């Protein structure tokens, strides 16, 4: 189980597919405790990612992810743009010069991405943000020897659903205070799609 440039492209294609398919759903989640744009922003950003990377040849996953990061940063906007942009930039930096990414590299990369999100968003776990999906996934890698990639999908899904119970204290949802409870955090849902796509692309790799 290792990731090469084409697997990363696959990961991005699958992420984009899930996000396009669930664009309205993500926007509806953001309608409940935000400003109705998360699906629109993510769909626009990932579409641009695909346009950017699809016909380009890259020598390393890191190179490709740098383009992914820069595209998300400049096309998503809002809160999600800088956060995902930062996360993928950290991932790219963590994997610098490697042509093959091992499970251990994934662990390190996701950890770096998570740290980037936390730092950029000045947030921590339990505040009902995408961190609440990234954190458990990173923990999964730290605590286990991942042999079955579907564990990633399961963990992310569970984590996403768990955000329902949380009260938002960061981001736009925080204005909803108690009323934010019982709603899935939109950024956690989009993160789930990204991890679900990672899980699928790891199956074949």
């Amino acid at each position: 189980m290792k990731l090469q440039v084409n697997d990363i492209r696959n990961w991005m294609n699958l992420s984009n597919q899930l996000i396009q398919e669930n664009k309205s759903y993500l926007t509806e989640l953001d309608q409940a405790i935000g400003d109705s744009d998360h699906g629109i922003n993510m769909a626009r950003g990932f579409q641009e990612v695909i346009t950017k990377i699809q016909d380009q040849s890259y020598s390393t996953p890191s190179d490709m992810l740098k383009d992914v990061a820069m595209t998300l940063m400049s096309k998503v906007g809002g809160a999600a743009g800088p956060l995902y942009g930062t996360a993928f930039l950290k991932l790219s930096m963590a994997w610098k010069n490697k042509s093959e990414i091992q499970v251990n590299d994934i662990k390190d990369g996701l950890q770096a991405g998570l740290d980037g999100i936390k730092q950029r968003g000045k947030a921590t776990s339990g505040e009902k943000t995408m961190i609440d999906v990234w954190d458990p996934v990173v923990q999964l890698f730290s605590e286990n020897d991942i042999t079955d990639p579907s564990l990633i999908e399961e963990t992310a899904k569970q984590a996403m659903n768990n955000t329902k119970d949380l009260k938002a204290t960061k981001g736009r949802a925080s204005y909803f205070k108690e009323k934010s409870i019982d709603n899935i955090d939109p950024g956690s849902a989009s993160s789930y799609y990204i991890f679900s796509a990672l899980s699928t692309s790891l199956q074949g790799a």
Partner: protein
Amino acid sequence: MKKIINNPNDVVSDMVSGMIQAFPEKLEQIDGTMVIKRKELSSNKVGLVSGGGSGHEPAHAGYVGKGMLDAAVAGEVFTSPTPDQILAAIKAVDTGHGVLLIVKNYTGDVMNFDMASELAESEGIKVEQVIVNDDVAVEDSDFTTGRRGIAGTVFVHKIAGAMAETGATLNEVKEVAEKTITHVRSMGMALTPCTVPAAGKPSFQLEDNEMEIGIGIHGEAGIERKPITSAKNIANELTQKVLDDLQLQSGDEVAVMINGLGATPEMELFILQQHVNQLLKDNNLSVFRTYVGEFMTSLEMTGCSVTLLKVDNQLKSLLEAKSEATAFRV
């Protein structure tokens, strides 16, 4: 959804084109961006950049002009613009005296403007930021994202803009912007929601007899939903909340902004204004200037906000200074 638009995904670029074509002698668009800048910059002046999601027109492009902003960055609807766009604006308006960014306090805006600052500084441009947080509907606390930036932002644009035009330094302009932020508070309410064009559905629902007090300009939750009441009660509730927070003394002088959120007839804003004015009188506050109209909207939301700015001689003279911004002529 009933809107005068073409493709919902193109509303921002269509709008920006329209703005440039409406004021070709005053405004220009930076190629490949949604940045609107003054066609001719004043020389020897600190640059002023603001921006944010679109849908708040005339904010922010309407405040670009001699005496106010040098450039405004238009994000997608309700979506903070991205660092590359903000950077393009910073670079376009810097004349070597540094650039002040006026940012509304939302997570997305703060992060994107932060990143743009970092990028600009790495290119050797002096950049400072101020974060406007006038919305008293949200509690200010270190453990939260803090108060939101709403209509009071326009006073910051005006005052910082006038200060910059005097040839003041970056620090001086920043200082007076921060002073303005310290002294400005707002509170809004909505009667009906708005619809993000690409979303196609209203962002929230209110019953036929319901209003929401403390609404955010992106439709974020307010303090309370309750049956709609008289203009007088609405004026008193909004104004009192602002007064409580500003802690004014009898005899203090204020500038007042009665802002429509997009679909409220001007008639209603003036009706509201009458009661705001009365409450200020009752509190022995004197009114320096009143601004009534649409300054910071929320697409076609029905509702309003009340903003008070405590003024002193400096702020008064800066408010009165000439402005050629298309949406704020003094």
